[in-house]
């Protein structure tokens, strides 16, 4: 895992959320309280937490849906790509932040993948040849060029989500926010989609902010894991630092191999590092067993 130093320490953070508190209009208590989240360009950040902890609310604050679509009381600041979210329209933010939703069905508007991917650039008023270039590039980057003429309902869930990612990619955002994109996908498609997202992060240097429950599948790609509980940010750090007893007690889906190591430690077995992937765990255990 490369350190953050490689990513240009002089550049400004792409997400700067300071002491943010938000209460939806008509609701008694705030959905997020005093949230401090800073993300550097190029990072792959996973946000997780029990249901109702405020994860979706945080995402909405990143692309302008809050406060433009969902009204309420905001205190604190949130800046994305150096734009103040509370003073910028969603249309303007859409040029910098892409958003992929949970249900592929309701974010694909057209009867062909190609036209769906073109939708965003068309909305931006770009000239036709630029749109064509971007569409071809986005389809290539997500590995679905061969599906360009298919209708969304002809595609599997995994392919639909790839189309949704391509559609967002075509707008050339610096940051992509994904809210539980693997929820409706089977395990295999989920893994594939996470690999695609990781590739976009590593090769195109797009910052990824991903909300996910399936920590076993996504931890290998994440630079950082942020855990929220009851509207507050509770843990924030490298995966192996975050997946401890506290995380487990909050009730997030810590990868089983990590839990296994914590349990073995309790049983008196001495282990050094904490694995977050099956491969790391295998290596560690093999060493112990054959020594």
């Amino acid at each position, binding site marked *: 895992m490369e350190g953050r130093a490689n990513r240009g320490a002089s550049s400004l953070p792409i997400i700067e959320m300071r002491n943010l508190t938000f209460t939806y209009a008509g609701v008694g208590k705030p959905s997020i309280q005093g949230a401090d989240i800073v993300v550097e360009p190029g990072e792959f950040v996973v946000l997780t*937490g*029990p*249901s*109702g902890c405020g994860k979706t609310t945080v995402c909405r604050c990143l692309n302008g849906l809050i406060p433009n679509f969902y009204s309420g009381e905001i205190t604190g600041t949130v800046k994305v790509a150096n734009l103040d979210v509370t003073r910028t329209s969603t249309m303007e933010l859409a040029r910098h932040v892409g958003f992929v939703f949970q249900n592929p069905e309701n974010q694909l508007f057209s009867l062909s993948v190609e036209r769906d991917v073109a939708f965003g650039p068309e909305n931006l008023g770009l000239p036709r040849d630029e749109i064509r270039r971007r569409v071809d590039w986005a389809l290539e980057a997500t590995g679905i060029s061969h599906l360009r003429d298919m209708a969304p309902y002809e595609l*599997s*869930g995994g392919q639909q989500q790839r189309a949704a990612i391509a559609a967002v990619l075509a707008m050339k955002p610096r940051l992509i926010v994904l809210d*539980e994109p693997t*929820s*409706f*996908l*089977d*395990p*295999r*498609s989920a*893994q594939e989609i996470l690999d695609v997202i990781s590739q976009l992060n590593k090769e195109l240097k797009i910052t990824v902010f991903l909300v996910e*429950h399936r920590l*076993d599948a996504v931890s290998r790609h994440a630079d950082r894991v942020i855990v929220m509980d009851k509207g507050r940010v509770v843990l924030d750090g490298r995966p192996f630092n975050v997946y401890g007893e506290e995380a487990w007690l909050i*009730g*997030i*889906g*810590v*990868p*089983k*191999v990590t*839990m*296994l190591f914590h*349990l*073995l430690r309790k*049983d*008196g*077995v001495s282990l050094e590092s904490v694995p977050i992937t*099956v491969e790391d*765990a*295998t290596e560690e*255990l*093999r060493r*112990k*067993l*054959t*020594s």
Partner: protein
Amino acid sequence: MIEVENLCFTYPNGKDVLHDVYLKVQDSEFIAVMGENGAGKTTLIRHFNGLLKPTTGRVLVDGIDTKKSSVASLARIVGLVFQNPDHQLFCETVKDEVAFSLKNFGYPEEIVERRVRGILETLDLTSYIDSSPFMLSGGERKRVALASVLVWNPKHVVLDEPTIGQDYQQKDRLRNFILQLNTQGKTVIVVTHDVEFIAECKPRVVVLSRGRIVGDGPAVDILTDESLVNKASLVRPQIAKLMSSLSDTGLPANVIDLFTARTVLATELKRA
């Protein structure tokens, strides 16, 4: 007992979904039906309460041929809980919502009252009895949907993708609840592709792929079979992958759940 014999099903629009499915589920069994999206899992379970009738072949529920029976009468013994609770919630209060089915089945008022309170207490929903179901959170709505089916105490319970959108704690509670239902003697059929969830409850697993049954056996055998798992667009549980990579060190390869793995490894490592 639910018996499926040579079931083939084609939708009216011509889509061939199930081919030659043969399945026997004994009373009080706990089985998981797994497979990729589009394999036919949802189509299969809709045959159990007669929503769909076989194109060829037959389905018998406690000896009754579903072709000769109405959905309402089959529903009394087979409770089907749908994936999305928003497809069924319509009442002003949770109490009415849960009472709906009992009223349809013609239960008298006093029994309705008693049963509704009982199931709400079991599912920890008593504080919401007079709330509007639409105001509840996603997880709570799912529990209300579950309550509205369990309230009439069906002998067989079928759950369609109950883990989607649930966090770890909710899944834990769900798992315990399902095991409790099974201990009470109910047949429980869970349709899911959540391998980690199934790895912890270890039911009998039936794997469906492209409309055919390609695997049927104990979870430890099915979920450790790499080629079978791949065929159905699933993955092996983390623990299974771990133990399989370490099998050359003499450890048993057919462990899929966390606590067995812990026990086995703790003993081995302390010895080493």
